[in-house]
């Protein structure tokens, strides 16, 4: 790496039918940090994730990841380049087992052809063994080994959340985008999750962007925070700076003198 930011976003905008969901968003994300992305309902946080991962096409702006301009790429190509994400509403393969979910997540690392798959050639056997070993490691790491043959839809919600992050990591990304990872958890579970995220970051030398609603959670986790309101970046800084920024307080609590 040339020391430049891992993810560089400039002038990113997205309009839906004349309304700006995101306007002139920018980000220079250094490798190895955790960034928090917060803001009231409808601020455009998830839209930004969808733009970075290719699920939405930007109306304007540029997204450069590790020196490659990925603006307007298909989601699967972006995933191959090393960006993984989770979704606000869990997108697990509910009818499949925990093991299968992780194997699928590892998909982009298998390279054998259809012929090898149908005949069971050594190349296929070797790579499948690798997949199983890798999946075994992740199961172990996340404490999911004893659930490996359980259908995901029947797992308790907290474990599903955990598996979701495990699957994102099983793609072996350089950049991980988490969309409200603590959603639906109680404070204790959320604290465990924060712990887990820190461990994962260290172990896989990850860079993360986390969208969150739960303030204590994100304030404790992120090194820097961006605040969005109505699709516009209104503040950026350390958690402490952001918390005391009058513009942020106004966005969250409303303008006092508006009633007066």
């Amino acid at each position: 790496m040339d020391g430049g930011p891992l993810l560089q976003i400039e002038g990113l905008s997205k309009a839906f039918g004349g309304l700006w969901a995101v306007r002139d968003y920018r980000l220079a994300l250094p490798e190895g940090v955790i960034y928090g992305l917060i803001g009231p309902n409808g601020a455009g946080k998830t839209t930004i994730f969808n733009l970075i991962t290719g699920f939405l096409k930007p109306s304007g702006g540029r997204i450069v990841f590790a020196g490659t301009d990925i603006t307007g790429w298909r989601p699967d190509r972006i995933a191959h380049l090393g960006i993984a994400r989770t979704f606000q509403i869990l997108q697990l393969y509910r009818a499949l087992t925990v093991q299968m979910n992780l194997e699928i997540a590892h998909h982009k690392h298998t390279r054998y052809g259809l012929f090898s798959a149908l005949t069971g050639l050594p190349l296929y056997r070797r790579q499948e063994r690798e997949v199983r070993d890798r999946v075994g490691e992740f199961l172990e790491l996340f404490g999911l080994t004893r659930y490996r043959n359980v259908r995901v839809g029947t797992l308790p919600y907290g474990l599903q959340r955990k598996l979701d992050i495990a699957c994102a990591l099983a793609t072996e990304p350089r950049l991980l985008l988490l969309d409200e990872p603590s959603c639906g958890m109680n404070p204790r579970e959320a604290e465990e999750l924060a712990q887990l995220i820190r461990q994962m970051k260290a172990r896989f030398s990850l860079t993360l962007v986390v969208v969150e609603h739960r303030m204590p959670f994100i304030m404790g986790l992120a090194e820097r925070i961006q605040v969005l309101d109505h699709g516009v970046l209104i503040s950026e800084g350390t958690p402490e700076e952001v918390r005391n920024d009058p513009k942020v307080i106004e966005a969250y609590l409303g303008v006092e003198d508006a009633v007066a």
Partner: protein
Amino acid sequence: MRRWTSLPGGVKFLIGVGLLFLVLFVANSTLNRYVLHVIILIGIYSVATTSLNLTNGYTGLFSLGHAGFMAVGAYVATLLTFPVRLRIAYNLPLLPHFLGGPDYQWPFLPALIVGGLVAAVAALLVGAPVLRLRGHYLSVASLGFMVIITTLAKGLKDLTRGAAGIQAIPRYTDIWWVYAWLVVTIYVIWRLLNSSYGRAMLAIRESETAAQAQGIHPMRYKLLSFVIGAFFAGIAGGLYAHFARSIRPYEFSFYMTFHIVIMLIIGGAGTLLGPTVGAAIVVALKYVLKPVEEGLGIYGLVEIVYALMLIGVMLWRPEGIAGGVNPLRFLVARKGERR
């Protein structure tokens, strides 16, 4: 029991195949022609339903056009194997030189495979636009494809003899051909499911969004699933033609699709052997009920029973579509769920 489950998959598969052919051998030498006839039909429908299962059960694309691919396979194979001396009498086209020349009659196996390949090419052409649609739009568009195929089969009289159909097709299909193909079909799908290809298909069925986020290009695997499914549907069509010895366009229309959909749903969509179980139940039921229907002169009874079974499964086992229903669970490896 424990020892059985701990065996490697390949060994289990071979043992299963060995047992199957042992049973077939005994059946073939002891049972009467009528029963064997039923057993062969079960095999042909099993191939068709198993191939439908790949798209509808595993990849979650609810296609209703499968009978169209069967028609393509049946007609192509028939045209290739049709005896030279009968071609002129039947007003069927003589084969052009690149297909062996006007005096050439193809052997059964290559004719079947070419039939399957042409069906696969048709799937590629149709799939590229149709698979972009979602949910029931895909169902209706693929149904439209089937109507187009049967209409063509009726209309292209110089090739297909139109609505009159083709008769006197040589009877090549026997119990060994059918079950060998069934084994091949199940083998291919079983291998697929144990590879990244099949896993990608399951992923698309469960959540296309997540699949994309994990680097899977949905269209690629949807097409693959559709094309492989069509290939085996074409094989099933070819086997059917050389068993029934006559084909007409309307045989491959709505009712054919309907029957294999019932077999799939009753047997269990998204399970490896479910389609075979479903085919056995539905075909056997037909041969039990047919005499009743004819004896009492109540035409339509068989279909009414089928329809009631389908509605019953849908109302009381709705998870069946996504691959949950399986009345004979203990017989069937639930590939999508456990390994």
